[in-house]
């Protein structure tokens, strides 16, 4: 049995046998949802976009989603974080051109948008590997062997160092600060998937799911 809990996949869960678990996977989408659970990594590898003419994100259905988000806030600026998420969801990362588009749509300046993008570590300012892997190594997880998980991930993905993308372009492994799941050490994120209880031994098994 696969022993890593990943609620977004139809995985069986380690500790849930006693308590009954919601194992039903769900891709969530209704009129009110703007946050979709998906592995952005699957759509994320867009290299060489620099030379191509810019293809706007906020057209058609995405534009409508943004319009609905705007209704929730008294200012346009407040839709900035959601709008950046939408860009990252569709493009895998947030380019300067995309920041300019967001700025235009929300009546901000590109420099302002960039200041915000660089504040939040989850926004990618560069294309990342198909699977963007973040491992928590903060103290609680560190006590439980998180750094071994990092080493195992580097080894099995072929990434030379933290932050670098593997030669096959599939993986980028980074350290991340506390993921808010310290009791389930070691949590890792693969794209938007949140996995718990990862150990160095389980790493090859985990990676099989992200090819």
């Amino acid at each position, binding site marked *: 049995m696969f022993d890593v809990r990943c609620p977004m996949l139809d995985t069986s869960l380690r500790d849930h046998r006693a308590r009954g678990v919601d194992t039903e996977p769900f891709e969530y989408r209704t*009129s009110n949802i703007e946050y979709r659970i998906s592995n952005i990594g699957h759509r994320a590898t867009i290299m060489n976009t620099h030379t191509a003419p810019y293809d706007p994100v906020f057209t058609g259905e995405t534009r409508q989603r943004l319009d609905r988000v705007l209704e929730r806030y*008294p200012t346009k600026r407040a839709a900035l974080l959601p709008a950046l998420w939408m860009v990252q969801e569709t493009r895998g990362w947030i380019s300067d051109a995309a920041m300019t588009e967001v700025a235009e749509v929300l009546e901000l300046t590109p420099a302002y948008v960039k200041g915000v993008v660089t*504040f*939040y570590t989850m926004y990618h300012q560069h294309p990342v590997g198909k699977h963007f892997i973040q491992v928590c190594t903060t103290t609680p997880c560190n006590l439980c062997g998180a750094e071994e998980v990092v080493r195992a991930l580097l080894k099995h993905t072929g990434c030379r160092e933290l932050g670098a993308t593997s030669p096959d372009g599939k993986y980028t492994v980074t350290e991340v600060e506390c993921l808010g799941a310290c009791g389930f050490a070691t949590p890792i994120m693969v794209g938007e998937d949140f996995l718990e209880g990862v150990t160095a031994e389980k790493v090859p098994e985990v990676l099989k799911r992200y090819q």
Partner: protein
Amino acid sequence: MGYPHQPHAKETVVLSQYFGDPEARTYQGWVKRGGYAALRTALARKPAEIVEIVKESGLRGRGGAGFPTGLKWSFMPKEKSKPHYLCCNADESEPGTFKDREIMRWTPHGLIEACAIAQYAIQAEVTYIYIRGEFTEPLAIMQRALDEAYREGVLGANAMGTGKRLDMYLHRGAGAYICGEETALMNSIEGRRGNPRIRPPFPAAVGVFGMPTTINNVETLAAVPHILNRGAAWYKSLCLSNPKSTGTKLFSVCGHVRRPGNYEVTMGFPLKDLLYDLCGGMRGGRTLKACIPGGSSVPILNREETESCLLDYEGCATQGTMLGSGGVIVFDDSADMVYQIMRLARFYAHESCAQCTQCREGTAWVTKILQRILAGDGHQKDLDLLLDLSEQMTGKTICVLSDSCAAPVVSGIRKFRQEFEAYLTGARRPAGAGVAV
């Protein structure tokens, strides 16, 4: 309940009753378990009455500062002249803390109900639930529950059929610990860098979008429906020690214990029992060395202090630490305190918003000194330097992130000086529990 474990007899299960029960996640399931009754009662009363009940219950903030919740609500203008907002703080990023996540994962409707009551009590038209960006699953579950709540008429223009309007939205963070600080959170909702704001003005006067705002932690709010259902007196009676600390508290225990997880106990519960009984003691038969009882930002306790600490605001203060967010980080005798303290300092250096000089430069400098000590290149005077820098970083900045970085450093040096000395004298060679990657 001690999710993900079987409930322990010594737990007082209130908030965690339905942890692990997938049916409680749905609207139907929640109603079947008595959900939304408290909201119905609340909407039939005057907002000020609800504030009174919460005041009476003795409920205090579970996000870290322990501020009396009813009192905080009473700071909102009574006469409404502009929009009011409620922000639910679900940014949970304090190392060692993972309780709000379980509340959202298992009882999303409980949180929606709680927010709706608070929102009504402070006369807010909108609640923003600010969820940290990494919480993809809680986010999806909360969104699904919110959709249901709107569909079932709990929220919206005619909330619970009362004709009152209640709106509630999720706002996803994007990777910044500091956005858990209440004013940074408001900036983040407004689409700004998550910089804490200087106070005054306080949020109750000038909050999100410049309007009167109340910010509460997920767990704080989650207690409110229970208080309304069972009465302030009942909540107040949940108290094992100091009457100023009432109710139950979820403790997230992590680190070197046999059964890490969330445990809900009555305020005043002995930390020793939490660790040895509920969590099954140390892993692999090791012995306890140290414990941080309130999330990484509070001073570290040594073994004696841990074993005599009572888990409430005053009990922790007696031991020279704080209850904080209730994130209990446990170190056994194998832990390299120097390395782990460095790792905490590095966390704060990574997360400093960069506004205040002491924090921006100090967190990074302290980290570098600790790394130098770990590499065997430390100087004898480094410890005094660390203490002096920590002093400079305490009580002088916009928010307490800077202080939070200093707290484990100062308490660590004070209580585990011999471990630092070992690196300084060369008695201990570089490379500890963890090796820098």
